[in-house]
């Protein structure tokens, strides 16, 4: 599957799982794209995975202090992979505090590089086999937290975020 098809399929499937998908935008245009969608100012307590602040310096509004995650209203993480067929983001935190950035705040923003989108879950098996250590605490995220436990009515935000925004980006050409 060509990259453009993977991006298209990923976008369609992630939206079907109730995620919002932004972009794809060039890395330099990402801040603007996200700013428009999230109106960052409305999330005064944003916590970002520490590594992101160096890769995307415009995330200066977010804290990298994982201890604040319990009180944050926006969690920002980067996905290591995307899975097109299921619209899934694969996040690889290295400890529980980093995992909680994706789970505790009511909104989760995931940055995903389009080149990292694979076609199907099977394509990850080999990557996982090579990198046992890296994947040890992985979290697959497909849409926001949901429940259908009362009368099978889909309700978002049961335990984790009720809103999931995925920002697709690619390197500037």
């Amino acid at each position, binding site marked *: 599957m060509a990259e453009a098809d993977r991006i298209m399929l990923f976008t369609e499937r992630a939206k079907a799982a109730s995620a919002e998908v932004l972009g794809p935008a060039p890395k330099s245009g990402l801040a603007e794209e996200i700013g428009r969608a999230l109106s960052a100012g409305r999330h005064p307590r944003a916590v970002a995975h520490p590594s992101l602040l160096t890769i995307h310096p415009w995330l200066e509004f977010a804290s990298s202090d994982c201890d604040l995650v319990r009180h944050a209203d926006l969690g920002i993480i980067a996905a290591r992979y995307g899975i097109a067929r299921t619209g899934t983001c694969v996040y690889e935190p290295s400890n529980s505090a980093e995992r909680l950035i994706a*789970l505790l705040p009511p909104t989760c923003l995931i940055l995903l590089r389009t080149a990292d989108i694979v076609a199907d879950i099977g394509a990850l098996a080999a990557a996982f086999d090579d990198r046992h250590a890296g994947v040890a605490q992985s979290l697959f*995220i497909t849409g926001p937290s949901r429940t259908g436990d009362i009368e099978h009515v889909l*309700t978002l935000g049961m335990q984790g975020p009720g809103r999931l925004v995925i920002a697709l980006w690619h390197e500037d050409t």
Partner: protein
Amino acid sequence: MKRRVDDALGSPVLRHALADFSARYVKMRKAAFGGLDFEAIRDEVVAVKERAISERERLQREFAEKLEAKGGRVHRADDSAEANQIIRGILEEHGARKVVKSKSITSEEIRLNKALEGAGLEVTETDLGEWIVQLAGHSPSHMVIPAIHMDRNQIAALFSEKLGEEVPPDIGGMVKLARRHLRRALTEADAGITGANIAVAAAGTLIIVTNEGNGGLATSLPRIHIALVGTDKLLPDWPSAMSILRALPPSATGQRMSSYVSFLTGPALEKQHVILLDNGRRRMAESPDFRQALRCLRCGACLNVCPVYRIIGGQAFSHVYMGGIGTILTAFIHDRDAACELAKLCSGCRACATVCPAGIDIPFLIEKVAGLAAEENGLGPIEWLLLRGVMSRRRAYHALMTSLGKAGGILADKDGMLKIGAGALPSADFRAIPVVARESYRSSLSGRDAREEKGERIIFFTGCLADFVYPETARAAERLLSSVGFETAMPTGQGCCGLPAHHLGDAGTARRQAAEAVKSLSAEGAEPIVTVCPTCLHAIRSLWPELLAGTELESEARRIAARAVGISSFLIARADKLRFAPAKQKITYHDSCHVKNMGEGEELAARRLLTIAGYELVETGENSCCGFGGTFSVNQPGISEKMLSARLDSLSGTGASCAATDCPGCVLQIRGGMARRSVRFLARHTVEYLAEALVDSDD
């Protein structure tokens, strides 16, 4: 069991919720598997799980080694008592008082909550559905949606009572309220207890699949994580784990992927303990028949399509595992006698086998469980009389049917239904019963020698109903076959196919009947064997080779299985030779479970034939089971009645005044039900409608 079934039958909330969910699930599952080859996925799951079962001892060792190298601790428990003791010990050692749980059916298997609460610990289920049933003091009624038996009003009343505030029956509001309460419990807990959907031996990793995200929270917020994992969850490596992750969410909830899949390797915070639980799994692995049940992913797909479960839900099952697979697991994990009782709830429709992503032949194993009961406790008196006294002796059985046929005139009302008997057995009176025909199909053949006639020959396996009760079906089939150039031959040694006996757990009688039938058919050469009964077709195809495996008749049974074909499939391949005077009648079609779930397209062939014959075919919304299931409708009249009633409503709702089906059993059930409703609605075998519109070639 009877009381629980009666309770369930008396709950319209439950029935409505289950019917609604089941109809939606079928569509969602189909969409989630869209674009994928389900059979290929299933084959992969079977291969992966079989390998894991064969290597289970090695995988347990490897998993423990890898996890302990990451700082986790692995314990082994042989049974529930040991597992409960280990978990209590761990909590005590770490001074834990408050425990949160993420949904784990394995923890229900060992009744962990009771054990922990008995030790004075505060336990909170964090999955919304589990929390609701915990607050209500109920047991879960569905593997994936535990509180499916309660509606929003009941849940609001429960929340109001237990949480001490007035809670309106607004689903969004109740979910928010639950989030607040559960977030507090998660934050304050000392320990999080989870199960695991998969344990990857090569990496020492647990994989937990949830939609709410509580699996991730219960393992990341409390300082101690305890995972209770059945040894059947171990897989060798990542590729095998990915194969399961591809099959599980579409099967469980009709999603392409669940919202959260958490991977855990070693402690997230202070401690991680994993208890590998055997609890009957080793015994299951050592049983050549039941080993396949260890492939189960606990996805619940088999429940969602089970027509009996749809009526009674999960609480009617005595132990945590419910539905068909529950019957099998209960036999090894909890209580064999209870499982033998549960086996009687199976109608034998085979819907579960068509959706099981692990390729488990659930109906066959349920019959094996019924067989264990028959072996240990003997057959019940009625079953004994019916099976051993009558049906296992072909000549005596046929003589009895002939005598009943002679008495038929006296016993029948004007519609050919039995006049007496209803008062004697009121619970079975939801459906009128036909009398045995005055002249059976086989007796109408005497004096005829088919071999003298022209044309190619087929062997006609009528089945008992078309032979003794509905000989008009057999005659219609004969006429159609003749018009496509085939002469029918019916071997006189033909008796019962054995499926009813096998379903009741009497494998001995079934084997004798299969052997007799194979001998009588093998004497007849290599012609196709055509049948008008899908139950017989299933017996010929699958049951006979299975029952006769290892005997001198095995290869003959396999040859015969390859020759067998349903009448509609046989005719559609020769439809160009059929000439019809267009019938122009509005008709609906009822999918017999054995036809539909055999997956050979017999029902599609029948629909095409009816259309070719000029019938105006109108479909019912959902094609549900009519509740016949042979002896099932006699053993479980309450459930059968509810199934029939729903089916009659949907058939009548089409506006047609008649229905075609490819199964004489369904004809009996639907016709009998309509007769009790005093509705003019005719149900007949497809061949009778076709024969009615047929223009004979010499006309």
